[in-house]
């Protein structure tokens, strides 16, 4: 099992740093899956995450000038590592003025992801910062729990409003209630509702637009005004929104009535899927 990769482009490094910062906000402990073409940050709902799952994917060639990996075996050419997300985020943040950044899987008494940063220096010799991030190598037996979640057939699919706006609204609602209802229809309407004994508050977003229906759903004669709703834990929604520092290139919300809300985001070339189950 081997892995080593290198980033030399400053923009790529900054982007990768932002992705890792986002992951650190979304999952304290996550799985990094390394395969020949992609890197994935995974949070599986089997792990103690309250049923939330996350699948973040990026094409390695969009970031790394060099990328070499050898998985567990030829048939299972992937590496699954469990790590504390914040360690990676912190390590990358120290690479602000880096000439080059290298990542390697190493074994220093225990398996580590070693991030090695060559800093720009005034003198002729370079300065090197090295971070050894402890990782747990996940055995093949457990890989089945860490596969890409199947995208459910949703009742409604809608584009999200500006996430910063959504976040400030949900932050205020959080003071009033621990649950929130997200509802949306195929006419571009999305509502965030809280209902307590004392007060009901609803925020309406209109004219958001809906992504084109998948072809097999085109025949579905759903009343465009009919809302699909799901009640979720407000903190989970807030955690998701807090992780989005930058407004994404594309943001879609898929609702499966009373079951699940699925956020499907694209940050430039990095895709993020986040699933929050209905509160039970």
């Amino acid at each position, binding site marked *: *099992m*081997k892995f*080593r990769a290198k980033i030399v482009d400053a923009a790529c490094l900054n982007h990768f740093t932002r992705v890792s910062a986002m992951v650190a906000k979304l999952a304290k402990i996550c799985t990094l899956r390394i395969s020949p073409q992609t890197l994935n940050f995974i949070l599986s709902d089997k792990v103690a995450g309250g049923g939330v799952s996350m699948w973040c994917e990026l094409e390695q060639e969009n970031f790394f000038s060099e990328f070499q990996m050898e998985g*567990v075996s030829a048939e299972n050419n992937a590496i699954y590592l469990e790590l*504390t997300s914040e*360690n990676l985020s*912190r*390590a990358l943040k*120290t690479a602000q003025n880096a000439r080059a950044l*290298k990542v*390697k*899987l*190493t*074994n*220093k*008494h*225990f*398996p580590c992801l*070693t991030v*090695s940063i*060559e800093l720009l*220096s*005034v*003198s*002729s*010799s*370079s*300065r*090197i*910062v*090295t*971070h*050894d*991030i*402890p990782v*747990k*190598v*996940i*055995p*093949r*037996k*457990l890989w089945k729990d860490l596969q890409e979640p199947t995208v459910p057939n949703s009742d409604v699919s809608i584009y999200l409003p500006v996430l910063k706006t959504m976040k400030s609204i949900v932050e205020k609602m959080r003071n009033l209630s621990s649950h929130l209802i997200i509802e949306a229809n195929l006419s571009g309407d999305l509502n965030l509702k809280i209902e307590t004994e004392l007060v009901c508050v609803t925020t309406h977003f209109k004219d958001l637009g809906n992504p084109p229906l998948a072809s097999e759903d085109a025949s579905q004669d759903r009343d465009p005004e009919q809302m699909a709703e799901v009640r979720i834990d407000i903190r989970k929604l807030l955690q998701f929104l807090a992780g989005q520092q930058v407004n994404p290139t594309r943001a879609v919300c898929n609702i499966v009535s009373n079951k699940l809300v699925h956020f499907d985001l694209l940050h430039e070339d990095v895709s993020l899927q986040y699933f929050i189950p209905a509160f039970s």
Partner: protein
Amino acid sequence: PLHRVLGEAVLPFPPALAEVTLGIGCGRRVILRSYQEEEADSSVRAMVTEMSIGEEDFQQLQAQEGAAITFCLKEFRGLLSFAESANLSLSIHFDAPGRPAIFAVKDTLLDGHFVLATMSESDLHSPAPHRLVPPLQAHSTPHLDDFANDDIDSYMIAMETTVDSEGSRAGPSIPLSPGLRPPCSPGPYSEDNDAEPSTEPGTPPPKKFRSLFFGSILAPAHSPPGPSPVLAEDSEGEG
């Protein structure tokens, strides 16, 4: 100036980190490395950060490869920012682990010595020189980039075998490096440690300045009246 070199060097370390090891590695590179206590609950390991600086970044470096001391990072950051704010020249004098390290700051108006205690050999998980020297092979030559350190395959073979037989997620038990359990020895810092409050054996004592004094080099007419109290013995007195 040294305070800037070191001020920049401590930036990558986590703000909450208590101790740091400073030493000389292969190729006469100056190394700063985070020092971690091995927790009893070692299921959560801490990230280890290391900064390697070339000899050329220092005006003067007189030390042997492998020499290293471990001291309180918080105090170190404090004195660095003091030196930075007053643009004082800084020099560091240290001896064997356990002996105090002296950080001397100076400009035309003042002359200061910060004395920090350092962890002694018996205190560290393994003797300091050994901790710093072996991994430095890869870091001191930035272009040496092969899989020399990546003996992950033997770990994987061991892991796959363990998982198949036990069906559990736990990896093979990796033998702890020798000396991982801190030895129970009270008063691990230097012998002149009489005034220290007692601490739990095996944990480093609370970090305090041993002494801090400023001697003014202004003419006597300008200095305050009365003898200056001696706050610390000079080093010759320690024998």
